[in-house]
């Protein structure tokens, strides 16, 4: 029975064509998205001439030719490019997987930085007068109202406070 191919093995499947002066890496676009290839190529344009091409559908080739004065061996450059490519692809994968969480944290941080809502914002939140003055615990009842003298005939002792004395 054939063994299942792991993601790491698939990611290492890069075809390399090498000549004396340059090398060409051929990549599978389903494994390495175009953005990851762009990111890696961008890192290398200070030391190599980089040319991208599409040899066939779903494949992107990257030609690396060291600039004059660059002494690194082609094999080293190929290895560095593959490392960079793997890092770029991995970072994008992590970003995609955590996009919702990142957006949620950012939104909360930004809303916190904006400070408490002002009167205009509170009014815009749609709280109508009934909802605004709904007071089931009686917190908004004034002291005078709560402990006012009972009308004659209701009995003397109010509960606690000045009215009970």
């Amino acid at each position, binding site marked *: 029975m054939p063994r299942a191919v792991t993601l790491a093995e698939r990611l290492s499947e890069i075809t390399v064509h090498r000549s004396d002066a340059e090398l060409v890496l051929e990549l599978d676009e389903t494994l390495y998205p*175009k*953005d990851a290839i*762009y*990111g890696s*190529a*961008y890192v290398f*344009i200070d030391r190599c*001439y*980089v*040319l*991208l*091409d*599409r040899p066939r559908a779903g494949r*992107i080739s990257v030609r690396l*030719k060291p600039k*004059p004065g660059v002494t690194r061996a082609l094999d080293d450059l190929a290895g560095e490019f593959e490392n960079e490519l793997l890092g770029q692809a991995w970072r994008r994968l992590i970003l995609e997987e955590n996009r919702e969480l990142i957006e949620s944290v950012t939104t909360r941080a930004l809303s916190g930085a904006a400070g408490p809502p002002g009167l205009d914002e509170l009014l815009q939140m749609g709280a109508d007068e009934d909802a605004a003055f709904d007071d089931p615990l009686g917190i908004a009842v004034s002291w005078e109202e709560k402990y006012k003298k009972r009308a004659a005939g209701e009995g003397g002792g109010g509960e606690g406070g000045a009215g009970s004395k």
Partner: protein
Amino acid sequence: MIELRLHRELYLEEALAQAIDLYREHAHIERQSTEEVFLVRVSSDTLDEREVADELANYVLGATVELSQKR
């Protein structure tokens, strides 16, 4: 004369236009387009054509990456 083939799916036309504007003062540059690729022909009497073409290609790639990130 050196001919560069820049695939349309990988290079932005805007980036290529920027590069041609910049490198036109260093070499004679002609541009043609097909459905698939931009063909750029670079020739110069005074400079190394290969080097100018390679530098131009790098510039187009860099500008493509930068423009893609802004979009």
